[in-house]
């Protein structure tokens, strides 16, 4: 056997001077930022134009007229209201349920660990598929949920087909899909809390409700805020569940931002209005994120100070 490595040319090592190393290391992040910023500024550019693909002769800058039109546009205010309502109810329900389940599974046992893994299953389902699954389950003709509703006297319960119950239906689907996300985050938070305060409270015979309100909840607040931040941002941008179930209907019951923007672009080819809607959505998301992050930082500082 010959040793081929003996004759191989010495490997050349690519050296980066220390001066450029920080730039090279930050290059991936820079490229990612460029990939985000180009579409962002393109959308800003379009949002300032009267731009409908089917009327190319009409294209031109209207310098914010798209935004001004929203002020007197009932459809826009309806979209804003529907989006915020959806986000509020979906996230509130998810927080309550997620927290409840996390508290139930807090103790490390084999059973609890198994259940917590099983409960992640909805999170593994694509939201659009979950919506279609729920659409079948709520079908008035053969849906299992419609059948169960009829057993408790709700004979003609029309779920997403009825403007009165459409919001409730899509919120239920959202809750089904995303509650495990909050549950797992809070469960990790609960299990990482220091044991001493709880042991001290147990020695003093402090009631469990008092422990929850005065010890568990304050210590868990950073986790709650993080979970809420993620879920609010995602809920206010909801598209797939609502579009797959109702396309924004009945009437204008569920025309949230993303559905409205999607229809404006892909169906009406009204690029200007679609971009302006998304800019408003971005602004709302930005403000909400800042509020949450500021509160989260404030809490962290407070906890550090107390520690």
């Amino acid at each position, binding site marked *: 056997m010959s040793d081929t490595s003996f004759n191989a040319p010495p490997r050349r090592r690519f050296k980066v001077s220390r001066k450029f190393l920080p730039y090279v290391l930050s290059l991936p992040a820079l490229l990612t930022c460029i990939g985000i910023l180009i579409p962002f500024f393109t959308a800003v550019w379009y949002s300032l134009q009267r731009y*409908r693909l089917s009327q190319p002769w009409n294209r031109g800058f209207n310098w914010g007229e798209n935004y001004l039109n929203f002020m007197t546009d009932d459809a826009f205010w309806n979209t804003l209201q529907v989006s915020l309502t959806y986000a509020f109810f979906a996230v509130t329900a998810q927080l309550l349920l997620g927290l409840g389940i996390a508290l139930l599974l807090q103790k490390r046992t084999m059973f609890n660990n198994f259940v917590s893994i099983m409960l992640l299953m909805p999170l593994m389902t694509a939201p659009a598929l979950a919506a279609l699954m729920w659409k079948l389950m709520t079908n008035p*003709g053969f849906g299992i949920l419609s059948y169960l509703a009829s057993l408790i006297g709700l004979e003609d319960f029309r779920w997403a087909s009825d403007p009165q119950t459409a919001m409730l239906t899509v919120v239920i689907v959202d809750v089904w899909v995303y509650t495990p996300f909050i549950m797992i985050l809070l469960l990790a938070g609960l299990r990482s809390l220091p044991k001493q305060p709880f042991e001290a409270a147990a020695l003093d015979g402090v009631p469990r409700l008092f422990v929850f309100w005065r010890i568990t909840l304050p210590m868990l607040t950073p986790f709650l805020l993080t979970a809420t931040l993620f879920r609010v941002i995602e809920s206010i941008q909801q598209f797939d569940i609502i579009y797959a179930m109702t*396309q924004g209907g009945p009437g204008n019951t569920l025309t949230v931002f993303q559905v409205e923007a999607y229809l404006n672009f892909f169906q*009406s*080819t009204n690029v200007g209005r679609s971009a302006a809607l998304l800019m408003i959505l971005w602004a709302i998301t930005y403000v909400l994120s800042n509020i949450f992050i500021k509160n989260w930082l404030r809490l962290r500082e407070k906890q550090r100070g107390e520690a």
Partner: protein
Amino acid sequence: MYDKEKQLAEDFVAKKIGRRDLIKGMSALGVTTALASTLVNAAATRALAQNGFNWRAHEGTTIKLLLNQHPYTDAMIANLENFKALTGMDVQYDVFPEDVYFDKVTAALSSRSSEYDAFMSGAYMTWTYGPAGWIDDLNEYIMDPSKTNPDYNWEDVLEGVRKSCAWNGRPGGALGSDDAMQWCIPLAYEQNNLTYNKRVFDANGLSVPTDLDSLVDTAAAAKTAMGDGYGIGVRGSRSWATIHPGFLSGYSNFGQSDLTVAGDGTLSAAMNTDVSRNFHSKWVEMIQNSGAPDWSTHTWYQVGTDVGAGKSAMMFDADILGYFMNGAGNAEAGNLAFSAFKANPDAAAPTPNIWIWAMAMSSFSTKKDATWYFLQWVTGPEHQLFGAQDMDLVNPARSSVWADEMFRNKLSASYSGYVDMHDVSAPGASIKFTAQPLFFDLTTEWAAMLQRMVAGEVPVDEGLDMLAESVNSQLAEAGLR
């Protein structure tokens, strides 16, 4: 090996023998109907190659198509080898399901991509694609004898269907006008008529409705008789697609239109007239009393599968949807029957609004002449006949195919009343919408308002006034009023 059979097929294509002799001869040689049909199609392709037109002018060129998942596409793909053999060209294609198909088309065209040379389109979509400069006017190819084979026979394409694909680009401009551009060429089309479950109708002594009032009454009676099911399937989702089938076909039969076009070309909403209010009231009542409980989420798919599964007694929708639901695999296969429907008792004939699947050429194609070779072949009489006889290319857009005995017999044998329905309603079949760039905005809003009326959120009169006001405001904003 197949010399005698091939000769028979060639004699038939050359019109030396009739269909009866062809079938007799093929049977004597032990050839099945399917194989006979394939041999005739191959002979037709060979005949096409000998019509003096240089089919091989673009030999070696490859074109790419964007296609929607549909039986029309299946027919196209099944016959593609004949096109390749005829021209020496290669054809590649991407097929997407309908849910995402038009998003893909919009994305490809708006980005000015040259990836696809031609694509399937609906006629309504060309009202966006044409003015945007994304597709070519095909008149320049059709009218050019150096580019179009002498057997293409453009006039053979049904007039209402052909004209529905042509628009001059002026908002409110009449479809098929002399100055219209041919934005696409029809592959096949759908008329909106009644498909009813004959078994249910016979068992319950129901008569086929003949106007809107009897439709409302029959739907209610059918619902009562069926127990678990419901009377009539019509679309209801929050989409323009809810307006264009049965709804607009019935509506236009009363002489109503979506918009009025003034002498100066400006447009105004026309859906709040007295006749329209009356029509809307009856339509809403029909859905409330006898429609699907989850009507507001019903697309063509649910409407079709429900009648095929025996959940609804009838549907007022695309005739070809009934055609497919009457086939094997459906609970009610063989039980569905068809009837031309005129909603207005005083109308002379049905006036169905139509949906057309057509082929359009991308303006960004770099192989336009070669692409036109494919377009003229796929919309030509030979492929249309093959599709109609051997595949499920219903309803073909050519009158010569509708005159074909074998095709008519095939339909009549398994689809009760289909041929009669077609023949009665075809003369009045065309697109009834006003061509204009806000088509999708206004019809989607119309559907959303219809949903609110059916849900009882807003009375019909008030809803139509609100709709008209909003439509007028949008038209004004877009400079069309």
